[in-house]
């Protein structure tokens, strides 16, 4: 039986469960990943040829590959590589639904998001990339302290500390401005070439939330959505007749879990696909994760998604 949590303005403590302590768990997850697989590379002006791509209006005509035009009668642009830092922004959903922990989960969704975020920070720090932390939280005033992007192990310590003290609160479903406010702030801070990893369950969001989030994928930024679900949310593992109450939004549904399980799974898959299509349309990627999944595998998938996201 799921632990009952109170939803509202009150900050809900996070059920860390088996994920605690976060620092140790994050380092162990990070060590499971090859530290050098992440190369912070940005194609564009540089000294080392980095391949070709089709010409799009607005490209610098200096890089137009005339040989390709003559040989293939196609407009191609030459690209060069240069090694540079690439800022990683973690955006963690701290709404009330992230405090949920089902009976089969090792910890709350927010705890799992913190684990992935901290491990990702550890990997980025090892690659000499700056890492920053921001929250997706409702309310006019931010309840959780953000961390500006910085280098080194100190950045890991700061971000881990903030993640450990995280609390969930608020209802994103009825706060139409909350996401927009958070997104705009993050968009302002993130520089060109930044990678934004949004850790959220992508549930209980209002209707325009997805469109607002896609702002983060626009321009020179790469957006990776990591959808973190509890096993019970993935499988609807209730038995028989059950009365379900939404953690955010106050929606109540009485249903027969055994009878609607397959239909629920279809709806959830549809919802995830909508998110995936939206983010991929903007060059981003979506990674699905469950709190019972191996964190190392999820971290690899996130790193792979970062590498594949539009540069």
């Amino acid at each position: 039986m799921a632990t009952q949590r109170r939803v509202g303005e009150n900050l809900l403590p996070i059920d860390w469960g088996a994920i605690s302590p976060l620092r140790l768990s994050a380092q162990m997850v990070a060590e499971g990943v090859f530290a050098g697989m992440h190369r912070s590379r940005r194609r564009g002006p540089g000294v080392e040829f980095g391949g070709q791509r089709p010409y799009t209006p607005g490209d610098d005509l200096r890089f137009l590959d005339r040989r390709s035009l003559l040989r293939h009668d196609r407009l191609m642009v030459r690209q060069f590589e240069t090694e540079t830092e690439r800022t990683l922004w973690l955006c963690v959903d701290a709404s009330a639904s992230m405090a949920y922990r089902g009976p089969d989960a090792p910890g709350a969704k927010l705890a799992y998001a913190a684990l992935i975020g901290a491990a990702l920070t550890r990997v980025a720090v090892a690659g000499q990339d700056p890492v920053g932390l921001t929250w997706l939280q409702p309310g006019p005033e931010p309840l959780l302290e953000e961390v500006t992007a910085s280098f080194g192990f100190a950045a890991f310590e700061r971000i881990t500390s903030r993640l450990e003290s995280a609390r969930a609160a608020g209802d994103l479903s009825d706060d139409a401005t909350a996401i927009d406010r958070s997104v705009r702030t993050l968009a302002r801070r993130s520089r060109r070439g930044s990678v934004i990893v949004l850790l959220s369950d992508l549930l209980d969001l209002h209707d325009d939330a997805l469109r607002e989030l896609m702002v983060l994928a626009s321009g020179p930024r790469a957006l990776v959505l990591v959808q973190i679900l509890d096993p019970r949310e993935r499988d609807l593992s209730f038995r028989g007749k059950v009365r379900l109450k939404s953690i955010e939004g106050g929606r109540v549904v009485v249903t027969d879990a055994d009878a609607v399980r397959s239909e629920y799974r279809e709806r959830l898959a549809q919802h995830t696909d909508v998110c995936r299509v939206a983010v991929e349309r903007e060059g981003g990627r979506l990674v699905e994760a469950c709190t019972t999944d191996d964190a190392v595998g999820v971290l690899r998938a996130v790193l792979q998604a970062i590498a594949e996201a539009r540069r």
Partner: protein
Amino acid sequence: MSFLTWAALGIGLLVAVPLVAHLLRRRPPDEEEFAATRLVPARAAVAQRKTAIEDRALLAVRALAILALAVLGATPFVKCSRLSLAREGGASVALAIVLDDSLSMRALAGSEAEPTRFERARKSALELLEGLEPGDAASIVLAGDPPRVALASTTNLDAAKATLESAVVTDRGTDLESAVKIAGELLESVEHVDKRIVVLSDMADGGEDAPPLEPPAGAKLWIPLQELRGPRYDCGVVQADRTGVSVAIRVACTPTYVAQAEKAGVDVERRVEVRVGDRVLAEHKLRVDDTSDLVLKIPEPSDSESEMRLFVGLTGEDAIRENDTAPVVSIGGQLHAGVVSDASSSRPPTGGAPMVEQVFSALDLHVQLRPLSTVPDRPEDLAGLSLLIVDDIPGLTPGQRRDVADWVEKGGVLLLTLGPSAAHAPLGSGFSPMLEGLVRWTKDAPKGVDQQSDQFFGEAFEGLDDITPDGRAKLDLGPDNPFEVAAKWSDGAPFLLQKKLGRGQVSVLTLPFDPEKSDFTVRLGFLHFIHRLVTTARTLGGTARTTVGQTWTFDGFDRVKLERFGAGDAMEAVEVIASPNGRSRSASPNRIGLYELTLDDTVTTRVAAMAEGEADTRPRRVADEQQGESLGGVQASVDISHYVAIALLALMLAELVVRLLSPRWSGQAADDDRDAAAPEAPSVDRDAA
């Protein structure tokens, strides 16, 4: 149906209460928080789930608990068919069980499917023992003739139970009066206030018209098991004696056999057959009245059959099969008794045969009486006798004395009556070694025999205390004389003396049979006296046949072996009991039939015959108060509340176990464990949630 039946049915309906409660339960489902609620399609509650039994084990346990409660509530009304005593005020009880192990108890208790009367009685006795409580005393008396104490009064109920379990039915006669008397004596030795005697018998002791049994003083007599007392129809061969080619047969049947058997549909066409092996030598249609005496002539057996034993059997079937066959006793079947008396002096004044001969005839003792003028002076003449009565003769010659002494030592029974003639024995004559000492006849006879000193006549003593003889014999016996004084005159002088001589017995009466000298021969005690002598003569081996149950004594033998010819001539060993001093041995055959007796190197045969009265299966009367429910019954209440209470506790424990094993409860326990493992989850918040 009675009110209690309806009440029990009503309580039984309560079993459905947990099921109905489950079906009527309409509690709302538990509310669960769920982030993806908006993706969950709503679905109306499925009616089928409401009717489904969620936890069958729990439902079963609760239904059983209600049943147990119903039984607990109905405990005062729980009855069973177990025989049990009714207690008065809860005091301890001293119980004497009189268990009839006689032949008539071999009859079936009811239909063919039911056990014998004895098994039914023994089972009831065990049930009675089961109902006894610590502190109660039990004793067991077997009522087969002669009655025996199987177990004296004891509080060791396990010993009583073991005794009952080892008890077996016999072919003995029945002596309920003596058995009840013995049971009363056993109860005298215990301190219990509440003393009960329970008679478990068919009450068929040959006395249908006899008065009901009298309870001993201080004890209550209870005769339950009325179902054992129905009449059964039986005939049995009492004796079969062969003299040459003649076989004298006596068959005893239940009185009114024909009428009752025809009424019961039993075949009354029965025949008596004399058989050797499988061949029938002679047969005769049986007259099934009370008793039938008949003599059948048989052909001379062939050479091959000369060594085989003859048997008399009855055709057809009746209640008891064991007494339908009896071995034929050659010659010695009848007891041969010799009487030496002066015919002129021993005849009654009214004429007729001497008194002693009249007594033999009146008692119908099946004795072949041989009047003798003198004591036989040849051993072969004495060898044919089992009993010799010498009535007031002037002594025996030395040769006679030697022969008679040898004859007695071989098992003969000698009665010497002393009168004026015996007191005037000529020189050289006497009774030594049968009787040492001088015999004197005196006129100063006191009046009557002392009843206090009587060890012989018992209930037949009536009238002996006022006999008025004209004189009596006096004996000058030394202090070391081997005689036992069985009865004394009122002045203390010996009236009747007895002693053993070898295997035989010598009795000395200090009165002659002459009716002119005394009126002893017309008293009841005289009949008893003669009957005892005959019985003793039969017992000591003067004849090959005794009634089953009578003790055979064997004195002076080093090796005694007794075996019974069983089915198919298989030999069944019979226990021979040695006396404490080791000089005497005895055995009590419990079964009808032919026995082989080995005394040192001599092998003889003996026959244990059925008691004639056992064929009469009609029960004697039982007083109403002796079968009243105030003493006990077969439907007494049994307190089983403590058993039910233990069952209820077990059911409660079972419910706890079922709840622990139930998935719902075990899931809650897992949640609790997990919450306890979360250090940052304060319990107050969890409770609030």
